[in-house]
């Protein structure tokens, strides 16, 4: 992000996108989604909701860290920063003038699979922001001075989120050591050397390749009049031309793992040993993702979850233990992560995590655990849809991971359909001994 970057992510499941449809107690009406495609290929999704006088505007581009040019990892994210600089008709930071200065906010984030730009503004500024988003879709300037300065900012972002965090580098290893072929291995933030290799010319060609109406979704939720909104969209986005060149896509498939691989990594200022155990996950559209979300809650959703109860509470070997579903379009990661308590070892963490895995694989889950997990997922869904921006994010995630904004309205139904047998089945299917990468991480120079 311009303000926060999401490379690996817990957010992938924290921001899970669900909606209530026909659930027993509380009910939330499905989002009333209007969808159309402009002649230039831009897909427009809108939800009119006049509850509060604000509007959330998201422009989602089908380009992310996985599309970084060869030898220039971190590029897509650095380019995202450039999108706040001048355009033909806007000076640098004009987006801030049109948002922050009138009481709204803006930001953007680059993920492995996509990049989003978004604003929340008082609704009388909606037309202004539609103009501005269309403007930067087509009229961006890339000048050397801005490029150099934003590269320095991104390097500071790297230092802050990776180098200055005791476990920052471990999460970079989770990407780089979990994939052998797929560009997901490079991570979104990249590294300092490859950031230095990027040029303004690279930015220009990246912009031309990927920033175009037929590679984007405009998603707007909030206080507007539908007819006016459609007119504005036609007026400002309709005039953006569709380029003729085809859009390059990542076609590399990560090969299935054939044996367990183990790594020992160190870094300075690491207070306690930690371990990450990763498994390749199915693509985000796979039907098994629903059962994996339920498993995620049972293993890792709160202090009554299995990992907390076992590693943190009863054995007291970990200060933190989690199971994560890092969903990605071409196949993400399922991983266990734990940080040791004072005096405990990474080996003890690995043993305990694998014991919990074996338990769920052999004994399955209880009906009560299943019900609890579903209740938690329903609450998450309702909370995620509390305001206009939350609704826009939920729609955007359905676009990103399932290719269809309307699937946001069936998420809860699909989770409700998960059975205890489904959970046990997916835990056996993906968590095999040969699909395992184990990364131990500790202080360089020995225990600290």
């Amino acid at each position, binding site marked *: 992000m311009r*303000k926060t970057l999401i490379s690996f992510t817990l957010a992938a499941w924290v921001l899970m996108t669900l909606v209530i449809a026909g659930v027993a*107690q*509380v009910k939330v009406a499905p989002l009333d989604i209007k969808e159309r495609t402009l002649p230039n290929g831009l897909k427009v999704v809108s939800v009119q909701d006049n*509850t*509060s*006088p*604000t509007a959330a505007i998201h422009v989602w581009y089908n380009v992310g860290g996985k599309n970084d040019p060869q030898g220039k990892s971190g590029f897509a994210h650095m380019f995202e920063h450039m999108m706040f600089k*001048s355009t033909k*008709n806007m*000076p640098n930071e004009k987006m*801030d003038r*049109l948002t*922050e*200065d*009138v*009481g709204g*906010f803006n930001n953007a984030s680059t993920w492995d699979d996509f990049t989003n730009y978004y604003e929340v503004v*008082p*609704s*009388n500024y909606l*037309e*202004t922001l539609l103009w*501005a988003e269309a*403007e930067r879709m087509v009229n961006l300037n890339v000048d050397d001075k801005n490029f150099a*300065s934003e*590269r*320095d900012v991104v390097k*500071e972002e790297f*230092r*802050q*989120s990776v180098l*200055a*965090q005791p476990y920052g580098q471990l999460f970079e290893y989770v990407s780089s050591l979990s994939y052998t072929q797929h560009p997901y291995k490079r991570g979104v933030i990249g590294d300092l050397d490859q950031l230095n290799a990027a040029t303004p010319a690279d930015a220009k060609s990246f912009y031309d390749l990927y920033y175009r109406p037929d590679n984007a979704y405009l998603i707007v939720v909030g206080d507007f009049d539908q007819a006016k909104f459609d007119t504005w969209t036609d007026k400002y986005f309709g005039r953006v031309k569709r380029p003729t060149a085809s859009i390059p896509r990542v076609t590399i498939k990560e090969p299935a793992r054939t044996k367990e691989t183990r790594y020992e990594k160190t870094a*300075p*200022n*690491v*207070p*306690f040993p930690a371990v990450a155990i990763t498994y390749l996950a199915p693509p985000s559209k796979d039907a098994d993702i629903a059962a994996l979300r339920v498993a995620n809650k049972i293993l890792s*959703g*709160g*202090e*009554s*979850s299995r990992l907390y109860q076992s590693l943190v*509470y009863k054995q*007291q070997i970990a*200060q933190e233990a989690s199971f994560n579903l890092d969903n990605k379009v071409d196949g993400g990661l399922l991983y266990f992560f734990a*940080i040791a*308590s*004072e005096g405990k070892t990474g080996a003890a963490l690995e043993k305990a995590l694998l014991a919990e895995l074996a338990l769920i694989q052999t004994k399955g889950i209880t009906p*009560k655990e299943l*019900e*609890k997990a579903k*209740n*938690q997922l*329903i*609450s998450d869904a*309702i*909370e995620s849809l*509390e*305001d206009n921006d939350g609704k826009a994010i939920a729609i955007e995630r359905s676009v990103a991971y399932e290719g269809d904004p309307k699937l946001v309205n069936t998420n809860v139904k699909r989770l409700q359909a998960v059975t205890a047998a489904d959970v046990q089945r997916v835990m056996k299917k993906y968590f095999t001994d040969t699909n395992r990468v184990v990364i131990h991480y500790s202080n360089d120079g020995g225990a600290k």
Partner: protein
Amino acid sequence: MKNTLTLLCVLCALVMSSFAQEMPPAPGVPKAVSVPAVQEKKLPNGLTVAVVQKSQVPLVTINLLIRAGASGEDASKAGLADMTASMLTKGTKTRTATQIAEAVEFLGGSISSGAGWNTSFISVTVTSDKVAQAMAILADVVLNPKFDQKEIDLLKSQSLDGLTYNLKQPSFLANYVASKYSFNEHPAGGTPASIGVISRADILKFQQDNYNPANSVLVFAGDISAATSSSLAAKYFAVWGKGKRPIKELRLDRLTKIGSADTSGPRPIVNRFLVVDLPKSGQASVIYAQPINGIGRSDARYFPASVLNSVLGGGYSSRLNQEIRIKRGLSYGAGSSFAWRSWKANFATRTQTKNESAAEVTELVIDELRKLSTTPTAESELIPRKSGLTGPFGLSLETTGGLANAIGELYGFGIPSSALNSYVANVNGVTDAQIKNFALDNLLGGDIVIVGDYSIFRADLAKRFPKMTVDVIKADDLDLSKDNLRK
């Protein structure tokens, strides 16, 4: 230097406008943001019940706030208030810690508790069909905590591990040090030494002294009516016995800072330089810290201070972020804040930069403080930075959690909830003269605290600040329980 910069910017603007071919469409007619009404009631035992009904989403946040926090604990027992609140969910007379977590999470909800400097809280958010069950658990943990020794031991070891982890992060470490060095307080999360000595008796005493209905407010925000809220509050909390009279926040008299300032002559912007040396640190954290005694949260100057902060370091477009990040690429972000107490405020600017540029960033921070205290803020800057406060204020009231926080903050300081309705007008009424005077009167004479790899920025710091004496402490030698901060 400053003049040159200004000229350049004027040129920039001219160049921009010269090739601008299209202007953004003008905004439409603004609509008013509605501030929801707070309904308030007192139970016979003195417990205040505050309700804001907002029914669009079937969610309810219930927040019990106790007007006692880290300010009420002894520095040698730093972390006691937070530990007491955290222990509430770790077992009652009839439920174990695991059963409490199990019960709340089965409702699809979450429960959290803790303490800051001013208040302690326990909060739960659930879907509106599960409010009664959630209230039963909330009341049980407040009224019947067991404070089991085994649970205390576990929480203490978790807190110590957490501190060890956080103290490896330059920004955490810088704030932690400034709390004692500059603000004459102690960290609300405790120190390794203080956590070690907190006993069950301390926790019981803190609870008995401070947790009572007259000293508390129960906030309901979301999809729930005032009538339902009142009857739930009465059903579960009427039995809460009347405790001692509400305590006032301790007015610490230790106003003289360590190594007290030379107050003769014109006030320098920086009084002291402290460096905490953290070898191999990935970045340096640079803080400017200045306590403002005598101006508390309910003082009318809260509003000039808030607008000042918005101008200086309150958002992406603030001056610090403009100068440090946007113009020079020296950081991912730079900002400032006031931490409010009932009778004082702690002002700090914060940023992280590569070790190599720590001294340069320090200079930029000082330049901005000087500018703020000598030059009026133009109306063209003031208006958007005021919107930077009022807009997010409106947005924050759109979620039950945001509503509960906004109301809780006011009650924590004994400020009537009608302040929500006057907030926007109060912000908009602030003048440039008030800001300049506030800066001149209150912001200068503070400390620069830098945490990072000193070997990298030592020479540059000496070069840029030849007259300053720099006090250097190795991170491994730090001890906040000592006046000289050293083990």
